[in-house]
């Protein structure tokens, strides 16, 4: 099969904010401030703005992490926040991830709402025990008398040509753990709102930020969220095959949809946004119309978010399916040296290869 990504279509992030469904907006958590209008921001700046709103709205909100103070984090997401809110609101911590999450739990026990930054996806594992055996279980252990409003921000995913442990997609480890919530925005608009909604949540939220999408700009409507935190949405309507993904994969799926349209194949693109719990409503609704589903992710395919969606759609929409649910994933080998990442990561072309197989079935 020949590659079809000769001329890259212009896919802007505006596409990602087109699909706002007003009927679902009613359940969005209201965040109160004066009208701000629509700004064009990068995702990094949008998260920065969202963090600033959260820090202003509630003095129990704290930011904790490595290099997040004067430097503003290695991706500058927290730039200027320590200068504005002080060292007791924006903490440069010792370099120890388990220590950061463990002390964040203690601070949450004291009534704070810590927002932890893990510097890179591959460095979250020293904190894995505190996240999975402690953070995820403190509330159930306390019979609900103690909430754990802790957000763990994780820049994740590939496409940035970096060295080992800097391009991983570990979200499935956390989605597998009861007691945690896991989300990932794909656009600056969603990032701005979802970070504030995650901070407002009384449950622990793993907030996966697609780091390759930190820099492209898009519109951010600072007056209307449009969606609750745990809702998926159709961001491009289509009729032939449903394609589902999250984070940076959304750009790839929109690119694939654009190419497919040129070949008279209509893809419906669903942005998951929430990975735990998964919002199956829009996925099942779409599959019932298209009869075909391709799930795409940067993460390893084995025991992944994609596997879970494939299994559940097979259980719940078996008679609507015209073809097996297909997965397009990172290969089940460690994330390779960066020189090979373009072959390793799912591309629009690999998505279209699966679309072709689904249609040929």
């Amino acid at each position: 099969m020949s590659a079809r990504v000769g001329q890259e279509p212009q896919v802007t992030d505006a596409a990602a904010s087109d699909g706002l469904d007003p009927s679902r907006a009613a359940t969005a958590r209201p965040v109160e401030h004066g009208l701000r209008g629509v700004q064009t921001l990068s995702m990094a700046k949008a998260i920065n703005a969202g963090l600033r709103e959260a820090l202003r709205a509630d003095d129990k909100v704290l930011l904790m992490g490595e290099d997040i103070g004067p430097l503003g984090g290695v991706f500058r997401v927290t730039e200027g926040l320590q200068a504005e809110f002080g060292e007791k609101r924006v903490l440069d911590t010792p370099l120890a991830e388990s220590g950061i999450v463990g002390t964040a739990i203690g601070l949450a026990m004291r009534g704070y709402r810590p927002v932890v930054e893990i510097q890179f996806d591959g460095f979250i594992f020293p904190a894995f025990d505190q996240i999975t055996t402690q953070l995820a279980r403190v509330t159930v252990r306390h019979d609900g008398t103690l909430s754990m409003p802790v957000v763990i921000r994780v820049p994740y995913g590939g496409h940035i040509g970096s060295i080992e442990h800097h391009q991983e997609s570990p979200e499935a480890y956390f989605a597998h753990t009861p007691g945690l919530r896991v989300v990932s925005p794909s656009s600056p608009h969603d990032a701005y709102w979802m970070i504030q909604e995650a901070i407002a949540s009384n449950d622990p939220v793993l907030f996966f930020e697609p780091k390759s999408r930190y820099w492209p700009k898009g519109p951010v409507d600072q007056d209307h969220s449009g969606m609750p935190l745990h809702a998926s949405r159709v961001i491009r309507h289509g009729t032939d095959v449903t394609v589902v993904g999250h984070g940076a994969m959304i750009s790839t799926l929109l690119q694939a949809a654009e190419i497919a349209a040129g070949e008279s194949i209509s893809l419906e693109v669903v942005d998951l946004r929430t990975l735990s719990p998964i919002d199956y409503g829009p996925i099942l609704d779409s599959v019932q119309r298209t009869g075909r589903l391709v799930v795409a992710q940067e993460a390893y395919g084995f025991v992944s978010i994609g596997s879970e969606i494939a299994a559940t759609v097979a259980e719940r929409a078996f008679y609507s399916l015209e073809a097996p649910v297909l997965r397009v994933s990172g290969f089940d080998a460690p994330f390779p040296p960066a020189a090979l990442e373009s072959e390793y990561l799912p591309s629009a072309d690999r998505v279209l290869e699966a679309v072709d197989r689904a249609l040929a079935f």
Partner: protein
Amino acid sequence: MTARQRDFTAPRVRLLTPAGELRPTPEAEPYLPLVEALPDEMLERFYRDMVVSRRIDIASANMQRQGQLALWVPSHGQEAAQVGSAHAARAQDHLFPSYREHIVGMIRGLDPVHILELLRGATLGGWNPDENGNFHLYTLVLAAQTLHATGYAMGLQFDGLSGTGEPETDAAVLVYYGDGATSQGDANEALVFASSYQTPQVFFIQNNHWAISVPVSRQSRSPLSLRGGGFGMPGVRIDGNDVLVSYAVTRQSLDEARAGAGPSLIEALTYRMGAHTTADDPTKYRADAEVQHWAERDPITRYRTWLAGRGASAAFFDDVDTEASDVASDLRRRALELPAPTREKIFAHVYSEPHPVMAEELAWLEAYEAGFEGGPA
């Protein structure tokens, strides 16, 4: 080439000798006034609490053998370290236990039936710390609680609740862990964070010499109290079988922490006379002679000798024995009456906010179980 000096000795702070004489070591002299300031009823309370602890230990181990508890975690031998340190805390302080500090919880006002509820397999927690003397839940992942305690102490500091000079409102955190747990990364990261943020906090290590079957020499070649200095905080090694020094040193350390002097560390040398838990068999890994050596340093015997020497009556000791028996049998009776949890407990409170999966799975389980009701036997 000469070998480098390997002298890792630490002075031991002790007020009461194993024979029950009040004879402070030189390092313990500064702590004597804190003990001299204690009223008689407090000194008697120390004794009572140690005896109650040991009696509950026996009753609970029996319940486990009778199949009424999934597990029991004995504290026989460690009563002085626990009772002295617990009484050193003020009402506003927060205590983070490991999982062996039953009498510490009771001193803070916890009904021990909740501990049995946990060890009976009826709950994952058992109590609300806010309503039980700020005695936090047991943590079964070793040393994980040291970080929670440190974060909590950071919060007290951010709230302006330490270092103001107000003894009635300034608060501190006391966190318990064992010699085995000192090897965990979390225990060391907690010391880093505590020192870095100068938290109002005392780290209380009960060195009972055995981490299940592994001796403390496998955890550390130097006294654990020296871990304090390496992280930039004072560390002191006390005779953990001396309830008076356990009280006095913890009292002094917590007072300093509340006053804003930062964290410190106490290593209480004691001995786990019984098994690690009822699932353990200590005769497989330690010598009778060692156990006998520590039996001669029993914390209750030495304290009783001292109390008797200063005039406590035989009637007092008899009353305490009777009271301990009553507490233990009442506890046993109430533990056996604990209701079994209902299936809703599987899903309730996994999240603070509504969660569709919890609702769906509970509904499924209810329907599944209902399918058996009224069906063929």
